[in-house]
């Protein structure tokens, strides 16, 4: 089988226009008869549900949350990029495109990334029209800031709550369609399987989390907008309930999973404080605009930071990357922090931390200006650590944050399983091996508002609603039975260990061997350990309660069971990619100065893995990355 990206012809700037010009349309009078299932109501899911509802399709939107407004997107802090060039500092669609390709270390698909940059400008227009209260200047126009290593100011923001405001905008659009009856919003509803009929995605199996009942839902197209899989690592900046089950079940039904090993670790998170820890809190990257990162030059220097004189401090990012300094991209900053801590120069009780220091900025701008810019972040830091960052530097450490990998999709965001569309963080498409700050929100909304509605319509025009299989079709019965069987299996083990303890152990294995730096022996070892742990899980997990009602242990058990399998695939992908690129750092492949050594000759491709049945190794499908308008260059931020 070959993966067809189906990229339209023409120059990069022409492709999306050409796609829309040539797309097949559905007769407006017929749209009501098409059923579309959307799973997820984060930025991607809520925006696509609302837009498809406006277009007249019959949409059902499922979330496991108690309300669509709770999706993990709500937690995004820093901002959203768009090539508006309002500050006239030299930004353009092409520059945003190029920065994203380069930031992704030349492992993303050129045509998709160009389109993302192109539609970015419309996102801001639309969100403002919806009433998203972006930050403004005194003249009443929109304010922008530079974010996450960009040299232009293209980031729009709403205090430190940009994700919240964008999600509430999309949620309100969804709510409006729900009120009009165009979208049915189904909450507390977790998708547990995908139903494939004749090679096409035609429905899902859902568990009602309150009653425990399973139900079958048929549709002409299924959209997964279910977010990333970073909780595979247990401790992460994700919401506690974010999980991979939807995309993993789709993988097992034949959807290819692309670049699972491209997982992003964010440099500025609050360090871990104990074994009971349930999540790691992100401190927005915007802090790096004014904060300076340092550690003592001397190994084991335990003096309080204020007592360490200037000349005995190592501002290592400024030293290593003079032109980007503290704004060096996430992967480089995270790796540098790990290297420094491995050398024994880390700070804090555990030695797993570096300082992020505002003393100089406070001296230059005054504490009030700093409070105005970052007050809420300083408050969060204080809440969690009981320390005052106006007086002493913050301590930060990298944490798992985002997954660039995800289900493989073509240019139209459709998986290799026709009828299955994958949007937002759940797909692999735009960020290559590393995502730039403020571009996930952009991608989620680009996919949901401006891209998928066109590409889904184009697909639906080939489908006949009257031929849609009913839920009494054998494929639905089989899928429901397999979900039921799996739930019973989980409940019947009644072993000695909690789900949480397995999740914690799996996370440790992944963080250690498939985290910031990876090598072949470590990855091999991790695969062995994961397989053992998975076996033990199915023999020894204790899932209390029954299937017949709200059972949070059961929910988590199902998700963790999926993580074992995804973890194995992630390690396999990391092992096969014998190069270092973006977030994927293979210790065997580095230059003498410790920088990543990419291998374009052998690895300039998307690695898409296809399930080949239980107990058989997955098949690797390669989509070559042929760049028409950019040239591979070594990514340098020096």
């Amino acid at each position, binding site marked *: 089988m070959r993966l067809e990206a189906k990229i339209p012809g023409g120059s990069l700037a022409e492709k999306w226009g050409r796609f829309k010009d040539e797309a097949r349309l559905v007769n407006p009078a017929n749209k009501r008869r098409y059923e579309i299932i959307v799973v997820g109501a984060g930025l991607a899911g809520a925006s696509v549900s*609302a837009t498809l509802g*406006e277009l007249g399709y019959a949409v059902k939107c499922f979330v496991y*949350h*108690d*309300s*669509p*407004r*709770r*999706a*993990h997107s*709500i*937690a995004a802090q820093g901002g959203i990029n768009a090539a508006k060039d309002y500050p006239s500092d030299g930004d353009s669609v092409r520059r945003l495109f190029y920065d994203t390709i380069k930031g992704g270390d030349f492992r993303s698909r050129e045509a998709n990334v160009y389109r993302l940059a192109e539609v970015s400008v*419309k996102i801001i*227009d*639309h*969100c*403002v*029209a*919806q*009433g998203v*209260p*972006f*930050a*403004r200047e005194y*003249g*009443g126009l929109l304010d922008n800031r530079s974010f996450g290593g960009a040299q232009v100011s293209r980031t729009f923001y*709403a*205090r430190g709550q940009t994700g*919240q*405001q964008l999600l*509430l905008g999309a949620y*309100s*659009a969804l*709510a*409006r369609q*729900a*009120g009009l009856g165009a979208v049915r919003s189904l*909450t507390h509803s977790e998708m547990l399987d995908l139903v494939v009929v004749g090679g096409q995605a035609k429905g899902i199996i859902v568990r009602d989390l*309150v009653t425990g009942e399973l139900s079958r839902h048929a549709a002409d197209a299924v959209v997964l907008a279910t977010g990333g899989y970073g909780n595979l690592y247990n401790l992460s900046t994700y*919401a*506690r309930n974010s999980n991979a089950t939807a995309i993993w079940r789709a993988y097992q039904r034949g959807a290819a999973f692309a670049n699972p090993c491209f997982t992003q670790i964010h440099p500025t998170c609050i360090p871990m*404080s*104990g074994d*009971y820890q*349930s*999540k790691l*809190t992100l401190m927005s990257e915007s802090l790096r605009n004014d904060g300076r990162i340092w550690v003592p030059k001397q190994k084991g220097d335990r003096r309080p930071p204020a007592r360490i004189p200037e000349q005995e401090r190592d501002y290592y990012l400024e030293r290593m990357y003079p032109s980007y300094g503290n704004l060096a991209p996430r992967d480089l900053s995270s790796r540098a922090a790990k290297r420094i801590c491995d050398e024994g120069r880390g700070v804090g009780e555990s030695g797993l931390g570096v300082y992020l220091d505002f003393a100089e900025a406070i001296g230059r701008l005054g504490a009030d200006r700093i409070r105005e810019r970052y007050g809420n972040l300083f408050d*969060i830091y204080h*809440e*969690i650590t*009981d320390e005052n960052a106006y007086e002493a530097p913050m301590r930060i450490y990298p944490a798992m944050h985002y997954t660039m990998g995800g289900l493989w999709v073509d240019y139209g965001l459709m998986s290799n399983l026709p009828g299955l569309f994958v949007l937002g963080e759940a797909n692999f498409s735009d960020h290559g091996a590393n995502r730039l700050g403020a571009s996930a929100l952009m991608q989620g909304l680009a996919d949901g*508002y401006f891209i998928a509605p066109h590409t889904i319509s184009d697909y639906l025009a080939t489908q006949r609603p009257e031929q849609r299989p009913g839920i009494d079709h054998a494929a639905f019965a089989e899928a429901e039975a397999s979900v039921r069987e799996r739930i019973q299996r989980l409940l019947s083990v009644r072993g000695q260990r*909690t789900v*949480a*303890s397995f999740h914690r152990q799996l996370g440790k294995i992944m963080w250690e061997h498939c985290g910031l730096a990876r090598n072949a022996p470590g990855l091999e070892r991790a695969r062995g350990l994961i397989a053992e742990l998975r076996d033990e899980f199915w023999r020894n997990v*204790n899932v*209390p309660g029954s299937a017949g*009602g*709200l059972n949070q*242990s059961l929910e988590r058990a199902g998700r963790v069971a999926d993580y074992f399998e995804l973890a194995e695939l992630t390690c396999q992908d990391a092992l096969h990619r014998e190069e270092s690129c973006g977030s994927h750092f293979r210790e065997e492949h580095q230059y003498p100065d410790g920088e990543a050594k990419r291998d374009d000759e052998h690895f300039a491709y998307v690695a898409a893995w296809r399930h080949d049945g239980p107990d058989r190794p997955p098949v690797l499908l390669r989509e070559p990355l042929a760049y028409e308008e950019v040239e591979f260059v070594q990514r340098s931020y020096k």
Partner: protein
Amino acid sequence: MRLRLRVWRQGQDGAAGGFRVYPTPELNPNMSFLEMLDVVNDELTLKGEEPIAFDHDCREGICGTCSLVIDGKPHGPRRGVATCQTYVRSFRDGDEVCIEPFRARAFPIVKDLVVIRKAFDRIIEAGGFISVRTGGAPDANSLPVAKDVAEMAMDAAQCIGCGACVAACKNASAMLFVAAKVSHLNLLPQGQPERERRVMAMVRQMDAEGFGNCTVTGSCEAVCPKNIGLEFIARMNREYAAALLKGKT
């Protein structure tokens, strides 16, 4: 340190709920309140008992999923934070801590500490939006918004939809929640065309959901994890009166 937890337990079989007491194991004061419940739940699981069901997700005070009434206060002892941002160090070694669900007619209890807040979604569905279709919006900077207006709209828009305001109110009124959304949208120029319709529709739905009346005791403001102020209720009352005067329904 250790605490004794008095926790509301209620099954899904229709039987009445009641309190159960659970002594905690040794706790680290830097643990979050929810991490403490995780630890207690792990112990219960290993003892063969059903763990305590409670809602949570982001664990950083933004998603509005966590709830809990802790020692009689929604979201616990500290002002301006949610339950998930409450830390064990806010309590003293040996304290007995009472944990109950949010209680309100419009928020039915599912199990233990989990309630359904779907009524809030229906209020938003009734009018908590600006009706724009995707595509065709004018350039974002074609409509300047004064900075102070944008800031005030943002103050209101910060609401996380947790429902603590309802749980704190003796009348179980949802006024603060509705006022925050009405104010956010009605303050902005984009929200003007639907200004009156919005407030009327949302208030009507609020009443239909069985939320009580507002008698301005201010208990909602005191527990709001985002410090959303009573002035927004006053603003909404004005909006409502103005719409009524214009004969809108």
